[in-house]
């Protein structure tokens, strides 16, 4: 049975619609909204639509990873799906596409790819660093995608980054564990893109998640790691 989780913060525009769609999808037993400190009507609308609402254990920003980890522990389903709460055109087929390989026993973890060009952080930060340290993962067209599904036991086997590094962290960790991973196309995803100035933290977190793992795996030494980590935010700032 499937639990669908929406990490959400101030997503009143689409949360009600998205919860309702997730609820009426085949095999979905529950929809969970993990609220990250919304000041709008996100919680009210999620409850109205029939979601279980829990609140992020720690309201630090960015805290997407904290919300996802909270969702994993709250979920009762054996399969957990994570979806961004701001998708404007969510439909049941997206959830079914994500879960089908798991239900059929072809994968334990599924990464969703969607029909638009990969984002700026993916192209400028994630892919170059993956090419350097984890070239085996370069075939994933959207390694930072927030639309994922996996067995609950698989999610419980990894530790979650607190911040925007969570998605790439999970992907690398599961790859290293030898978990069966596939990427599926979930169609066109319509959502608002973040302005460039809001991507600095995200780029930093993604870089940190990849470089930390590269260091642990002996692909980069401590001195090099410190040099990368300390200079990346400045370099991103300079390039704006």
């Amino acid at each position, binding site marked *: 049975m499937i639990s669908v989780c929406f990490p959400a913060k101030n997503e009143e525009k689409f949360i009600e619609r998205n919860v309702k769609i997730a609820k009426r999808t085949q095999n979905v037993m529950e929809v969970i909204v993990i609220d990250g400190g919304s000041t709008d009507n996100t919680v009210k609308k999620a409850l109205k639509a029939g979601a279980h609402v829990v609140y992020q254990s720690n309201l630090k920003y960015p805290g997407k990873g904290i919300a996802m*980890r909270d969702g994993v*522990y709250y979920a009762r389903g054996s399969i957990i799906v994570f979806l961004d709460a701001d998708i404007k055109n969510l439909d049941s087929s997206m959830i079914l596409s994500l879960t089908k390989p798991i239900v059929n026993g072809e994968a334990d973890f599924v990464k969703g790819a969607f029909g638009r060009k990969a984002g700026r952080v993916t192209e400028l930060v994630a892919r170059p660093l993956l090419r350097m340290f984890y070239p085996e993962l370069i075939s994933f067209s959207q390694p930072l995608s927030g639309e994922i599904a996996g067995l609950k036991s698989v999610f419980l086997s990894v530790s979650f980054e607190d911040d925007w590094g969570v998605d790439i962290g999970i992907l690398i960790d599961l790859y290293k564990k030898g978990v069966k991973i596939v990427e599926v196309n979930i169609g066109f995803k319509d959502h608002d893109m973040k302005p460039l100035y809001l991507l600095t933290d995200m780029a930093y977190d993604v870089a940190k998640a990849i470089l930390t793992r590269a260091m642990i795996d002996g692909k980069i030494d401590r001195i090099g790691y410190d040099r990368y980590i300390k200079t990346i935010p400045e370099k991103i700032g300079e390039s704006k």
Partner: protein
Amino acid sequence: MRYIVVGGGHTSQFILRTIVSSDKKAIITIIERSQERATVIAKQFNAEPLWGDLENPKTFEKANISICDVFVASTEIDTLNIRLCEAAKRVYGVPFVIGVVNNPLNSEIIKKSGADIVLDPIGLALRVLELKIRQHGCIPILKEDECGFNFSVLKFRSPTSIVEDENIKVVLIRNGKPADDNVVTKGDLLLVIGSGKEFSEAVKKMLKK
């Protein structure tokens, strides 16, 4: 009494101190995911360490949860604490279940899940703060020895003239900007900064005026 404490973080350690100091005959089991952490903390509190998958009922059965008197879920993950309280109360029928929440908004959820008592440190502090604001309208935020000067926020219910004293510096803020006059009206923010022992007296004097 027999206690099971799940989690070896910051809050758990204070809970363990309280148990040890208030129940000399306490039999305590500490359950943690990490063997190292469970062992080190258990040693500190003369408790039995247990480690394993916190999602697996067998971990709790090894701790003899069915005969425990008090179960404490105090991990850093609220949703895990919610599920642990639920299992302790509904599956194992533990007489007294205590749940910790890091986010006060989860208090009601953990109570409904089966916690007899909710430990909500932030919620408690916020209730004290709210009470202080309502009752006194004046809350010292930082003590002098913490920051080198006294720092208070005042709340006025009716228009009040303020007069500066040599021991305090007063800034009247209206709509987010310093005001031109010195009459405090509803909604204004008054920042009073001072140093020395005379600060409290000076504030009292100012309030009387």
